[in-house]
């Protein structure tokens, strides 16, 4: 890339070339600053996805089971032990599939969990924001394991789904690490270690 400018200006760089070099230098400095900023912040790191999800019909009610891969590394575990909270939000959307029209929404559900270390009791408290229930767990691994799966969550009454029709179930998870204010997140928009969203996990539901 640098060969052709050297051929055209072997002795002294032309002004345009100097300008290009200055721009390259500025771009490198900017990238270095961003990388440095990202590296100093210890936060969410790794894959964040809904590994599996299904709806299980029990006694006329569909119960949601979800398994999530959480992007928590050692830094997040350390942060949790030091009291930084972790919030998980699971969104469920069930749509009726239509052939020539956009899918019609049938039901939507959002379940929020909040995990935080209690330093007085030395236990991890997992709080279900929807039901108000909370669970106390002794270790961070146990707490994360518990947080990474949703089991038997009543999601949908069977009567809402028509037999013979085709439905599409979608699950997505959102994870917040710490209580980072929106202002900070907006200003440091290029840092994604405080808030992550998974892709939609979709499967077909045929009652």
């Amino acid at each position, binding site marked *: 890339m640098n060969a052709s400018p050297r051929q055209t200006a072997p002795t002294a760089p032309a002004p345009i070339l100097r300008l290009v070099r200055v721009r390259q230098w500025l771009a490198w400095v900017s990238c270095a600053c961003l990388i440095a900023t990202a590296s*100093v912040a210890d936060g969410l790191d790794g894959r964040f996805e809904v590994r599996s999800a299904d709806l299980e019909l029990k006694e006329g009610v569909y119960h949601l089971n979800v398994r999530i891969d959480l992007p928590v590394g050692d830094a997040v575990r350390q942060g949790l032990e030091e*009291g930084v909270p972790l919030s998980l939000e699971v969104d469920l959307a069930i749509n009726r599939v239509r052939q020539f029209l956009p899918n019609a929404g049938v039901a939507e559900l959002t379940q929020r969990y909040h995990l935080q270390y*209690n330093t007085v009791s*030395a236990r991890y408290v997992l709080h279900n924001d929807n039901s*108000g229930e909370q669970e106390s767990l002794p270790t961070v691994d146990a707490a994360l394991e518990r947080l990474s799966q949703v089991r038997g969550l009543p999601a949908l009454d069977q009567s809402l789904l028509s037999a013979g029709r085709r439905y599409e179930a979608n699950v997505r998870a959102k994870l917040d690490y710490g209580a980072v204010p929106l202002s900070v997140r907006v200003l440091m928009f290029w840092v994604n270690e405080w808030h992550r969203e998974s892709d939609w996990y979709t499967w077909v539901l045929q009652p």
Partner: protein
Amino acid sequence: MGTAALVRKYGSTVIIGIGIALWLGALFLLSSAAQNSGLFNRWLPWILLINILGLLTLFGLLAGKLFGLAREYRRHAPGSRLKARTVATFSALAVLPIVVVYYFALQFLNRGIDSWFEREVSQSLKDTQELSRAALDVRVREFLQNTESVARSLSALPDFDLVGTLDRARRESTALEFTVLGSQTRILATSSDRPMDSVPLPATDEMMLQVRRGRSYVSLDTNAVGGYVIRAAAPLNANGNPGGRVLIAIYPVPEQLSELADTVQRSYAQYANLVQLRQPLKSTFVLILTFVVLLSLLAAVYGAFFAAGRLIKPVQDLIAGTRAVARGDYDTQLPLPSRDELGFLVTSFNDMTKRLARARVETHRSQQAVEAERASLAVILARLSTGVVSLEPDLVVRTANQAASAILGVDLEAAIGKRFDEQVSDGTLYVQFLNAVKMRLGAENLDWREQIELQSDSGKHVLMCACTALPNDIGVPAGVVLVFDDITTLLQAQRDAAWGEVARRLAHEIKNPLTPIQLSAERMRRRFLGSMNAQDAQILERATHTIVAQVDAMKQMVNAFSEYARAPDMQFTRFDLNQLITEVVDLYRAQDSSVDLKLLLAADLPDISADRMRIRQILNNLVTNSLEALEGRAGASIEVETQLAEDAGKPVASIVVTDNGPGFQRDLIGTVFDPYVTSKLKGTGLGLAIVKKIVEEHGGRIEADNRRMGGARVRILLPLGESGRPFSFREPRKGENRRERV
């Protein structure tokens, strides 16, 4: 004033005002929001939007200003360099403090945030945490022992007796709830202080796992409704049967202790949050600070442009005004910027241009007057028959009139602006004149008057030349003026007049005694010839004959003089000149056949009005002159030619008599028409003088010169009409004659 003009005049001011207001509003929002994170989150997008808009607007305005300044600088617009320097100075003055403040603000920010996380703070928090745990651990252990004690007391009881004992044990302790679970975590018995509004808390997997291993379990848990509870579990079967019953107890934590624990937990959580936000907060504040500083910098630089523009504008006006004055636009009036020193300068400039404009008008008038004078002088000079040439000190021709060109035979008017001696000309008159004048121009005294004689093919020319030095302000000659006149004709006229007087006196004084002398001689001859001897008679006869013959000769001479000096008494008739010439020439052809007499007569020549006899005399004299010059020459030839010509715009009859004889002697060419000027041995020397006199009496003109191939040539121009006669007879026009020479 139209809307567009208003927008042009106040548009930028309004935009800047709105920008400043928004910026101040954003700062106010920022300062208010800094106290409240909720407000900050809500207003942040607006603050960001305002600042980004302001930044972009300022950046655009600044880019426009910079581009404009660069363009002016490249075009060398008036004041652009001064403006650039002023902007640079103002910008430096504004930017440097901002940069310094920015640097120290960054330091302060970093250290301020770091101070939140000093070692003492975190250590205190840890100590508080340890203290809380220690305070609660005592109770936890107590409740665990109590639970184990109750479990032991219940171990021996069958399932149906558990309820009463369990309830009694709960009442005896401070427990909130006692529950005995059987296999498959089935509730066998339970006792609660709120039996109606709650169900037994379920056993956790962790709890059951530990109890099934035969170990007691205790934990401090948070309550869903707030506060803390101590949850303990102990197996009932003391022998450690894992499939046995389990006592689960819930104990309360005192409210005060619970609140304190909550406070510790909140502080711990907040501190953890702060620790997590430490670096992002730093980055965020640095970003905001940088943003604000950048905004301030751009505003400061734009302000520098604005201030420099206001400061430089009068100077630019002055420069533009000065250039306009330099171009000659003296009506330039600059707007008065203020009443300070610049205002005084502008006022002085306006006064100066007013005075210059007035002076220009006066100069213009003077110039017009001078031009008019110069035009008049040029007309006078052009009409003057006297040659006038003015020269610079380095001999460059400043002015020259037509007469000078005509007299010297060169186009001096074309030489204006060139050196006088650079005229490349083979004109004999000019070269002689230049040689005569150059010697005198080198002398100190430049005021002189001298007669200069010049020689040309047509004869001698006598110029009366006067030189005068042109004065200037410092006394050094600014040049000279040469005034010269061709006085050849005047001298000739003087000579003619003198000869006329001589002729009249001769005719009067000499002619009268001649007749008595002749009569006396004849009488002496008649009286004494018969009475004398032959020898004496022969002597007398010879003497009287000589006297009579000489007296006749003298009479002829006196008659010739008389003819030359006679008064012009002519009989003008209209006749055919060609016919007259033919008659005269035929007579000579008959007399002398050895000379070839040729006639080249113009067929279109009209009749002329003249004295036929005198014209005949002219022709006789000229032909006789030529015949005498050709005497004894082989191949002698005389040619008489007539033409219809123009002289000074008037039709004339031209008679040219040429021969192939020896021609006029060069030194006599100028005086051939003077009486007694002749190169021949015989003759009175009055022939050509009489010819010239007759020609001039007819208002004509005569010239004599030599042909290039040899021989003499005499040319006579006779006016065809009578109108020219009275004028030309007495005063021949010198200028016209001179032009003819050219």
